């Protein structure tokens, strides 16, 4: 009951929620308006930085000719595949090493060493191994995404209160229920921190990989545009990256709201 009234307070509170929701977007809007004014007055050379209106025109052109969506799809597929593989790998490794001491002894030192290598340092090697095909990009994303999730899963499980585990034993929870009701929920806050961090790594890796070695995708679109001096397209891709990054963050936050609501109470 208390929780429910808390929810209604939020919507009926001082200032109202629409204002609260819109306020964060005020600064980006002002920046775009100022930028447009500067461009219109001729204070900025359009070859260096095109006006927002021109960027929007480029957006419309690429949207209507299908180029944008095709590239966006390719990029998202790479990001998603890499994240799924890397995330699962990190999760399984984290669960394994946190559960079996032997596995930890065998794996942890190695994983900690590999972890310190920036995944993008592998780029030249990866191009030799895989060329510029899909595998190269996915491999790099997997390398980047695995470790944050691994570390946070391991840490999350290890920091579950042992008193709760004893309690669960006393109250007759079997192995499966112990995992589902106690260990995983206890580790989840930490795992989600790993997920959020990984999403950031995912985009960064994808952008770099696509910019340097690709024949499709958003990064390729930007590189291609550079060769033809289409600054409007370059700016457009940068803005798209910002939006996609924000989108990933929104997803991560939604996951936290859904699964960690017990912490907010």
């Amino acid at each position, binding site marked *: 009951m208390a*929780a*429910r009234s808390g929810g209604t307070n939020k919507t009926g509170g001082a200032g109202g929620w629409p204002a609260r929701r819109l306020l964060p977007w005020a600064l980006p809007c002002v920046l775009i308006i100022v930028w447009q004014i500067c461009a219109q007055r001729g204070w900025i050379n359009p070859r260096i930085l095109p006006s927002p209106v021109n960027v929007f025109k480029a957006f419309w052109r690429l949207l209507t000719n299908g180029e944008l969506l095709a590239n966006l799809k390719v990029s998202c597929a790479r990001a998603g595949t890499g994240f799924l593989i890397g995330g699962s790998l990190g999760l399984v490794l984290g669960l394994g090493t946190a559960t079996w001491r032997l596995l930890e002894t065998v794996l942890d030192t190695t994983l900690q060493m590999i972890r310190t290598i920036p995944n993008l340092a592998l780029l030249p090697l990866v191009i030799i191994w895989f060329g510029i095909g899909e595998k190269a990009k996915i491999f790099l994303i997997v390398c980047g995404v695995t470790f944050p999730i691994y570390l946070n899963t391991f840490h999350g499980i290890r920091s579950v209160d042992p008193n*709760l585990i*004893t*309690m669960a034993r*006393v109250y007759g929870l079997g192995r499966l229920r112990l995992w589902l009701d106690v260990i995983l929920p206890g580790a989840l806050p930490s795992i989600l921190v790993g997920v959020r961090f990984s999403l950031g790594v995912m985009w960064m890796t994808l952008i770099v990989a696509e910019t340097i070695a690709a024949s499709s995708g958003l990064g390729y679109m930007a590189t291609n545009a550079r060769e033809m001096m289409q600054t409007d397209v370059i700016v457009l891709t940068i803005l798209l990256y910002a939006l996609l990054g924000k989108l990933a963050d929104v997803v991560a936050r939604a996951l936290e709201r859904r699964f960690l609501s*017990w912490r907010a109470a």
Partner: protein
Amino acid sequence: MTDRILEGPAADGTAAGRVASDVAGSDRGEGDHGGAAVEARGLTKTYGDLTVLSDFSLELRAGEFSAVVGRSGCGKTTLLRHLACLESPGSGEVLVDGVVRTRLVGDTRIMFQEDRLLPWKTVLENVGLGLKGDWRRTALGALDDVGLGARGGDWPKVLSGGQRQRVALARALAHAPKFLLLDEPMGALDALTRIEMQALVERVWRDHGFTALLVTHDVAEAITLADRVILLEKGRIMRELVVDLPRPRRRGEKFAKMEGEVIEWIMSLYAGFI
């Protein structure tokens, strides 16, 4: 958050739920009455050079309320863990209703010093932990029993310390234990909440008739609740006091005399050091 609440007691009233719960309820009925006779025979436990229990024997009659008092480090908690069969002794054995036990069984439950509620489960889900069948109904009954039936949909975080400990008691009661071990469950509560909690423990013990063993270092609490107060020192029973005051017990002359006596015993243990 709202959908969590909807999952709570409100969702319980379905016809299918009731049928299932009737079956579970009749199962539970017998276990709900009476306690188990518990016996420890020659329990010995050493950790390295340290002897925590030495040839410890104790008999708890069915439905009896006993309290173990003693200084910290006297082996109280170790004894409790052994009686619950959470730990196995170096030698000796624990018998419940005349049968040797080697592992914790469903008719034995522990209430800990901390509430140990799972913060990510609602109050009702916490009480229903480890229950089979229609756990909602059983859990709700136990919550009602401790006067928190309306709080089932809340997160443990929003409750006070005393309320959380009551939820922990409900969680133990939901399993209809025949043997309930209380490991200083009131130790962390403030004085007024503690009195309230003691009255609640006494009432549910009288209602359900389980065998109870309370570990505490509060002598007044032991005398308020127990039929028998046991003084533990160096892993063995030093003294025993039968408390034959009528319940519910009020502090009076006889109460004070008994309390004084037990404190005297404890002080005599220190005599060598002071």
